[in-house]
C-alpha cells in the first residue's frame, strides 16, 4: 500500500497570470507506484514478485521550497535490510487533473474555452487519520503477484522487427507480430458499423544482459460477448471469461498484455474527406476518457498497453498505440515482427 502523509492542492493561473484559486487534489498515486516498482524489476533491482511497501514524498521547487512541488518521489522498499529503489516524477503527472479543473473553471466562466493556463501543485503535511477504519465483513490480504517473466534476448527480437510510431527512451519494448495487426484490422473491416476489439496476450520476457524486460504479443483474441455500437464497445464479464477459456485451451501460459479496439472514422468523421480523416485528432493518438478509464481499471500494470485501429474507411486503417509512461497513459511506439512494408492497409487483406 502506498504511504501518503501530505495533502495535495492545485492552483491554476490564467493567461494574464491571475490566480484562479486553490483546489484540493485527490491524487491517484497507484500508477506512479506501479511505474516505480516495474522500473525496479526491469532493471534487475528487485525480483518480479516484489511487493514491498511504497512511500510517496514531495520534491520541492528548489528556489521556493515547501509547499510548492517540482514533482514527487516514489520509494520502493527493499526486502529486509535491502536497499530501497526510487523513481522521480514531475508535476506533469498532475496534468490530467489540471485539465479537469480547467473544464470546471470554464463552466464557471472563470476561464475561456481554449484559453491557456498554467498550474502548480502544493503539498501540506497532514496529521494521521483519526477516523475509525470502516468495519468490513471480509479482510483482504495482499497476495504476491508474479509477472511470470520468461527469458529472452532483446537483441534477437530487435533484429527481427521493424519500429513503428514514435519511440521514447525508457519505454518498455513491445513486439507485435504482423498477423496480430492484420487480425485487428480485418476484424474492424468486417464490422464497419460497430466498434470491435480484443485482448492482446503473450509473454513478458527478461533479458538480464540488457537489464530490460520486454513484451512479446503472441495473439489477438477477439472480444466475444462484447456489446458493440457505432462509437462504443462494452467489454462484459462474459468477454473476459471467454479470453480466459481461450488461454486455457491454448495452454501456452500467456498472460493479458493489453487490449485493442477500433475507432470508426466513417462514423466519427462522416462529413470529412479522407485527407482530413488521416490527420484528424480523433485518428491520430486519440484515447478517449472512457478508453483511459477502461485501461486504468483492467490494465493497470505498468507493462500493459492498448492498440487502437483507426478505420478511416473500409479499405484504409492506421494504428495508434498507448502505454503507461511515468504513471500516465501516452502514445508510444512498438515493433512489428515479420513486418510488411506498408503500415496502412489498402484493400481487403484476405
Amino acid at each position, binding site marked *: 500500500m502506498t504511504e501518503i502523509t501530505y495533502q495535495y492542492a492545485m492552483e491554476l493561473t490564467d493567461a494574464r497570470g491571475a490566480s484562479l484559486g486553490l483546489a484540493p487534489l485527490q491524487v491517484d498515486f497507484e500508477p506512479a507506484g506501479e511505474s516505480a516498482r516495474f522500473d525496479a524489476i526491469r532493471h534487475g533491482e528487485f525480483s518480479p514478485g516484489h511487493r514491498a511497501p511504497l512511500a510517496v514524498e514531495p520534491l520541492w521547487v528548489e528556489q521556493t521550497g515547501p509547499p510548492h512541488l517540482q514533482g514527487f518521489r516514489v520509494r520502493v522498499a527493499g526486502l529486509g535490510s535491502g536497499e530501497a529503489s526510487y523513481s522521480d516524477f514531475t508535476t506533469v503527472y498532475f496534468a490530467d487533473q489540471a485539465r479537469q479543473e480547467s473544464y470546471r473553471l470554464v463552466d464557471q466562466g472563470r476561464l475561456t474555452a481554449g484559453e491557456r493556463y498554467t498550474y502548480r501543485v502544493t503539498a501540506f503535511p497532514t496529521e494521521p487519520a483519526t477516523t475509525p477504519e470502516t468495519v468490513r465483513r471480509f*479482510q483482504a490480504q495482499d*497476495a504476491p503477484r508474479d509477472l511470470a517473466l520468461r527469458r529472452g534476448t532483446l537483441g534477437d527480437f530487435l533484429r527481427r522487427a521493424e519500429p513503428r510510431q514514435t519511440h521514447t527512451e525508457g519505454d518498455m519494448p513491445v513486439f507485435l507480430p504482423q498477423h496480430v495487426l492484420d487480425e485487428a484490422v480485418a476484424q474492424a473491416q468486417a464490422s464497419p458499423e460497430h466498434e470491435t476489439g480484443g485482448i492482446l496476450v503473450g509473454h513478458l520476457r527478461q533479458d538480464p544482459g540488457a537489464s530490460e524486460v520486454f513484451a512479446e504479443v503472441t495473439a489477438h483474441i477477439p472480444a466475444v460477448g462484447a456489446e458493440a455500437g457505432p462509437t*462504443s*464497445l462494452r467489454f*462484459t464479464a462474459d468477454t473476459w471469461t471467454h479470453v480466459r477459456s481461450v488461454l486455457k485451451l491454448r495452454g501456452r501460459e500467456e498472460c*493479458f498484455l493489453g487490449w485493442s479496439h477500433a475507432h470508426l472514422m466513417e462514423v466519427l468523421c462522416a462529413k470529412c474527406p479522407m485527407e482530413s480523416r488521416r490527420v484528424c485528432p480523433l485518428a491520430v493518438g486519440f484515447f478517449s476518457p472512457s478508453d483511459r478509464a*477502461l485501461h486504468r*481499471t483492467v490494465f493497470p500494470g505498468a507493462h500493459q498497453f492498448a492498440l487502437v485501429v483507426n478505420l478511416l474507411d473500409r479499405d484504409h486503417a492506421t494504428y495508434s498505440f498507448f502505454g503507461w509512461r511515468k504513471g500516465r497513459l501516452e502514445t508510444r511506439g512498438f515493433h512489428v515482427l515479420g513486418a510488411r512494408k506498408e503500415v496502412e492497409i489498402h484493400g481487403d487483406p484476405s
Partner: protein
Amino acid sequence: MANAATLEMQLHISDVSGQKSAYVEKIPADSTVAELVQDLLPQMHLSDNDSTGRPLVYQALLEREGRHLHGSEKLAEAVEVGDHLVLQPNIDAAARP
C-alpha cells in the same frame, strides 16, 4: 479456531488481468457473493465507477466451475477452500472526446 459464524476459507481473489490479487481467509457463514464483491473493490483498489461516474457492475467468476456466481448466492454454499474468484467488470470503451 473459527468462530461458529465464520468459515475458514483461503479464497484467492484477483482482477481480470491478474495485476491485483488478494487472499480472504475468513468469511461470515451467512455472507453473499455480492457482499464479498462490494467489500473487496475498495480493499483491492478496483475502480467502482466508470469515466462518467456511473457504478461499474462486477461479476465474480468461479474459476473451478467456469461460471459467474450470482450475487445472492451464499458463499458458504458456492465456494470451497482454495477457490479462485476473478472480479470482472462490464466496462465501456467509447470514442467520445
